[in-house]
């Protein structure tokens, strides 16, 4: 990427200010808009490298914008901004190719870290990747490209490097959900929790899918799989 172009779509002044201040020294081109409709218009009109997108927005909400990005095949790396301590809608967002999240309150170190990862992720290729964190990043790159089977394989390889990683199991669960395999998703979330009982994203994902209105066939299938263990 040459000069990095960032669009911040958020109506809260503390968020736009924190993001702008975090990247002020990097020489990035940063623009902001505080309304969903305007944000979508700008995403359609111009090419952006990174878009910070709040889930709650006046005009169109963040999830609907994400759906439009997916349907209009806009190539942008989206970072979703979620509420305090929340990882809501992560799987839904992933279906539309968004894999990076930051929760409020935003702080500069995390923001810079996530943007650095996104930028360096673009250069990864299956052949060059050997380490755990590279496989995770490769999986995220595939998710953005909606290549979910490839993402699944990359996560499996990450797990061979670090079999006790709650993060990798949680990501595996989410990919399985996107692929429609609820049983495998639930097992992956359980593994994540087994290795890290406090890992919030996996706890919330498991809570969400177990409280979903599963149809009875799914439920039976899930129970028989669990009982066979």
């Amino acid at each position, binding site marked *: 990427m040459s000069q990095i172009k960032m669009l911040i779509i958020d109506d809260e*002044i*503390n968020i736009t*200010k*924190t993001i702008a*201040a*975090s990247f002020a020294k990097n020489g990035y081109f940063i623009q902001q808009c505080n309304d969903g409709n305007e944000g979508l218009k700008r995403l359609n009109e111009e090419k952006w490298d990174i878009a910070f997108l709040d889930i709650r927005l006046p005009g169109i909400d963040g999830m609907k914008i994400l759906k439009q990005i997916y349907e209009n095949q806009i190539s942008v790396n989206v970072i979703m901004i979620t509420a*305090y*301590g929340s990882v809501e809608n992560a799987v839904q967002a992933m279906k539309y190719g968004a894999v990076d999240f930051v*929760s*409020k*309150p*935003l*702080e*500069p*170190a*995390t923001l810079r870290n996530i943007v650095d990862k996104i930028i360096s992720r673009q250069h990864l290729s299956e052949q060059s990747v050997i380490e755990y964190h590279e496989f995770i990043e490769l999986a995220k790159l595939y998710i953005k490209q909606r290549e979910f089977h490839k993402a699944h394989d990359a996560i499996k390889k990450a797990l061979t490097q670090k079999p006790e990683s709650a993060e990798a199991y949680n990501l595996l669960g989410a990919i399985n959900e996107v692929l429609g395999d609820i049983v495998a998703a639930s097992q992956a979330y359980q593994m994540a929790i087994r290795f890290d009982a406090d890992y919030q994203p996996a706890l919330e994902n498991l809570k969400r899918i177990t409280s979903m209105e599963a149809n009875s066939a799914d439920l039976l299938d899930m129970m028989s799989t669990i009982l066979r263990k």
Partner: protein
Amino acid sequence: MSHKYIIIVGCGRLGTILVNRLSRLGHSIVIIDKDTGAFEGLSSDFSGFTIGGDAAESSVLQNAKINKADMFYALTNNDNTNLMLAQIAKDIYKVPFVIARVNDPQRDIVYKNLNINTICPIIIAADELIKRTEG
């Protein structure tokens, strides 16, 4: 200017004036108070984050991302609360720089013995008055 991530508990008169000024200096601020009405005193250009909740609950401190904080100031009007919060920030979350406000000057020495950095507005005011008296 080095940009710091600072968590402050207590949005009373001291907390309010402090976060308004720190925010203007460009630091990232999270202010926590049980009473969300307390945030009404924040200036319109305050660009930090507010969290309504009891900082003594670990979920509130975790939501504030205390593990990422460069600094933690416990500024409530309750000395025991401030001491406990400062100890949590320092010992559990390893925040590099922690300060507890001490409202009762007689307790200041006790806190110092516990290895907690303190600030006592009354002692500071007294020191300042002595300085001015002595010229």
